[in-house]
């Protein structure tokens, strides 16, 4: 009996470790690429894009606060980085194959692929991830990190997304990065 308890606790411990390990790795991967000139990375805390004179009500502000930040990571495919593109794509894929991430939708065709994933509960999402790749253009990872984000509240907030309430100037910097 003792042996079973020992094995069980060992298995549980291993599961716990692997869960933690994966938790760090997507974050770690993104941080690692922030200093890599081949990658385009963007880290936008939601508090930063909320304008001071916004006219959002309390409910909407609560929703904005549940969204902590948005991460964007992209690798443009160029003539000389095809091999690297494949390696990095596989690395992200293997990180995302963890059980932690639950798939919402997946699409794949000849040279395009996109996956929509999340962690948490459908009514209290902690992380929303979109990973898309195109064999001609490159890949992009879009990640929204939050704390119990409620999809129906976020949809309600969408009606109030305008330049009056949010500062989208970071989009310009993104545009200039790509060109």
């Amino acid at each position: 009996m003792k042996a079973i308890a020992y094995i069980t606790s060992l298995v549980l411990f291993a599961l716990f470790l692997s869960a933690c390990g994966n938790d760090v790795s997507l974050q770690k991967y993104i941080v690692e690429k922030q200093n890599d000139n081949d990658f385009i990375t963007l880290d936008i805390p939601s508090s930063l894009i909320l304008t001071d004179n916004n006219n959002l009500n309390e409910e909407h502000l609560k929703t904005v606060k549940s969204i902590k930040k948005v991460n964007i990571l992209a690798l443009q495919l160029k003539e000389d980085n095809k091999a690297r593109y494949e390696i990095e794509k596989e690395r992200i894929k293997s990180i995302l194959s963890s059980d932690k991430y639950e798939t919402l939708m997946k699409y794949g065709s000849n040279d395009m692929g996109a996956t929509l994933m999340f962690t948490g509960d459908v009514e209290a999402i902690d992380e929303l991830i979109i990973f898309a790749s195109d064999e001609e253009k490159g890949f992009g990872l879009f990640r929204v990190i939050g704390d119990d984000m409620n999809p129906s509240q976020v949809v309600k907030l969408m009606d109030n997304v305008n330049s009056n309430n949010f500062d989208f100037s970071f989009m310009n910097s993104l545009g200039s990065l790509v060109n």
Partner: protein
Amino acid sequence: MKKLIAIIIVALVSQVTFSQSVFDKYESQRDVTSMIVTKNMFKLMSKIDLSSNDPEAQNYLKTVENLENIRIFTTDNPTTAADMKKTVESYLKSSALSELMRVNDDGKNIRFYVKEGKNENFVNELFMFLYDELSNDKMAVIMSITGNIDLREISKLTADLNVPGSEQLKDIDKKKN
């Protein structure tokens, strides 16, 4: 004691393989266009309060809420299409699906299968296979919808997803009665 460990291992392994389907291999195949929507997506969609009073939209959400998975695989590569046909044949043999209807549309052979559900209007799986053997653009489409499916409502969803044969599915209800 060994038995117990074996049971635990089997339980763990079977849990992993349970969610796998025989068609998963087509997901990563290059000449296959695949689309997978999971239970979580349906749950999420039904949780989004569209504050709609439109009874049709409400009905639609109710249909969607009870779905488990939608998998659609399309190919126009003749070799892959033939492989899909084989996989489908073995899948039909191993599962409790019964033929619902057959449509021959312009050389396209479309078959619908269902797995019986709680009553005659509900099925646990709706399976469609399209195989176009005769025409030049040999193609195959596999669609599998699992969950608690209301046959009277599902044609709206398949029409939205642009699934071939959804036209014919519309008449399913009339045919049954």
